[in-house]
């Protein structure tokens, strides 16, 4: 059972299921490639820069929702090698503003059905998400989020320390600690996902529909003429195209500079770390704003930790010692009994920070040069909805209402987005 080749160069990918797993196991026949390597064509209808979840989702939805398949996705490295492969894979929609909630909730809805739609198990584990509050200001913000969520029909509520302890028994909820847990925002629909699987699932789905994914292909320049995009120059050749979509993280300003577009973005590393595996004991995602730490446990038994971006901008993914020191100190504040657990590996990705904790999506002053950037520390959870919306923009030429608040022009107009509202009390 291979894949069927259709006349237009598209294939239906080999179907994944328990049955086909069994059949191939019995016959010892290999699975076909999830994506092909192609020659770089001299022109494409659409060029997407960045083969992370945003770029791949945009390509997928362009093909599936709009029938646009003459698309190239370029990446200077491997599929999902940037932020999409380095994040702590937490999904949630418990945001502060109504626009934010609507946006992330759409993403969560898409994630829910993604495995079935892509025929690729993305392992979305909806195990619940706890944001701990250690000050009354923070508790107030949790209530703010809960109330906004409830009005948008998103399941969130503020719970007290006893309920927190019931959900995560290893947390120290006594008042003897330096930062006592006063309560938490509990968001049952939140959880974690296998980030690589999402990237691969979208890549496989897009590739099967004729999209060309070009790895190890670096964008070196973007030619603009008469106020619009003309050509993309890459390390493997030039591509003539009327539409370029910037879906990079860390490199957003580098790419935008090529098109002559300035962005209000500053790049900071975001570090993360993982421990050795132990038997499962943490069954929800736990986040603490005051302690700047989030922790979850994978099905493999490892604890995955994240915290805040580095305090100064850089493009280094080398990691720092002070990061893991501070992280460990704060994790042990929350769960003192796991001091003997060992950290196995630390890494970092690059985050493009904007002035209002919200992304930049849509058109720019250069015709045909579109952006889906500025995703800070919250990009992965927005992959599906962003891809869907940017595909619609490319296909119809009209900016979908869902992403209208994130226009680049908002900075020139002084109309920053409301998620900045909570910045002073911890996001």
């Amino acid at each position, binding site marked *: 059972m291979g894949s069927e080749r259709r006349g237009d160069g598209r294939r239906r990918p080999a179907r994944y299921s328990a049955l086909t797993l069994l059949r191939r196991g019995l016959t010892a026949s290999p699975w076909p490639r999830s994506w092909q390597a192609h020659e770089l064509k001299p022109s494409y209808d659409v060029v997407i820069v960045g083969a992370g979840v945003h770029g791949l989702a945009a390509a997928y939805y362009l093909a599936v929702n709009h029938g646009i398949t003459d698309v190239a996705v370029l990446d200077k490295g491997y599929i999902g090698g940037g932020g999409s492969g380095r994040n702590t894979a937490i999904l949630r929609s418990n945001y502060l503003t109504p626009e934010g909630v609507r946006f992330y909730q759409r993403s969560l809805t898409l994630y829910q059905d993604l495995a079935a739609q892509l025929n690729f198990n993305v392992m979305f584990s909806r195990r619940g998400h706890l944001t701990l509050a250690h000050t009354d200001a923070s508790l107030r913000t949790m209530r703010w989020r809960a109330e906004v969520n409830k009005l948008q029909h998103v399941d969130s509520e503020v719970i007290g320390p006893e309920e927190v302890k019931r959900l995560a028994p290893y947390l120290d909820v006594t008042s003897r600690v330096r930062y006592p847990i006063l309560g938490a925002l509990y968001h049952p629909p939140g959880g974690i996902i296998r980030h690589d699987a999402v990237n691969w699932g979208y890549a496989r789905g897009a590739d099967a529909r004729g999209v060309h994914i070009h790895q190890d292909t670096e964008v070196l320049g973007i030619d603009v003429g008469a106020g619009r995009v003309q050509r993309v120059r890459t390390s493997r050749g030039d591509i003539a195209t009327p539409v370029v979509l910037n879906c990079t993280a860390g490199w957003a300003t*580098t790419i935008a500079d090529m098109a002559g577009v300035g962005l209000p973005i500053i790049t900071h590393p975001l570090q993360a770390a993982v421990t050795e595996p132990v038997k499962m004991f943490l069954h929800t995602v736990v986040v603490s704003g005051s302690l700047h730490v989030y922790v979850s446990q994978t099905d493999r038994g490892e604890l995955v930790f994240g915290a805040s971006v580095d305090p100064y901008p850089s493009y280094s993914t080398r990691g720092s010692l002070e990061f893991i020191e501070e992280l460990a100190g704060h994790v042990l504040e929350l769960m003192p009994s796991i001091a003997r657990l060992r950290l196995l590996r630390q890494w970092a990705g690059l985050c493009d920070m904007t*002035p209002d904790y919200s992304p930049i999506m849509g058109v720019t002053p250069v015709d045909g040069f579109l952006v889906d950037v500025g995703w800070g520390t919250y990009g992965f959870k927005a992959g599906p909805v962003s891809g869907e919306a940017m595909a619609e923009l490319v296909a119809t030429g009209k900016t979908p209402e869902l992403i209208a608040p994130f226009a680049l022009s908002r900075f020139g107009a002084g109309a920053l987005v409301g998620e900045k509202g909570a910045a002073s009390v911890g996001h």
Partner: protein
Amino acid sequence: MILIPCPHCGPRNSSEFRHAGEVKPRPDVGTVTPQEWRDYLYTRRNPAGWTTETWYHASGCRRFFTLTRHTVTNAIRSGEAGR
């Protein structure tokens, strides 16, 4: 923990300092247009390379100074006081 060469105190651990931003000349408030002001507030060069920026020695001499740093390697060329 990179070393920041404070012009007054010598090289000190970066945790003693606060990064105060890319150097960007403050426009004349009297003549600036709204667009230019917002560009000053929000837009930055953000290079993957050498950049000139201001640091504040918060746990030391408490002076502001500028230096030039390579944002990929964190190599630093020494700087000067003020802006």
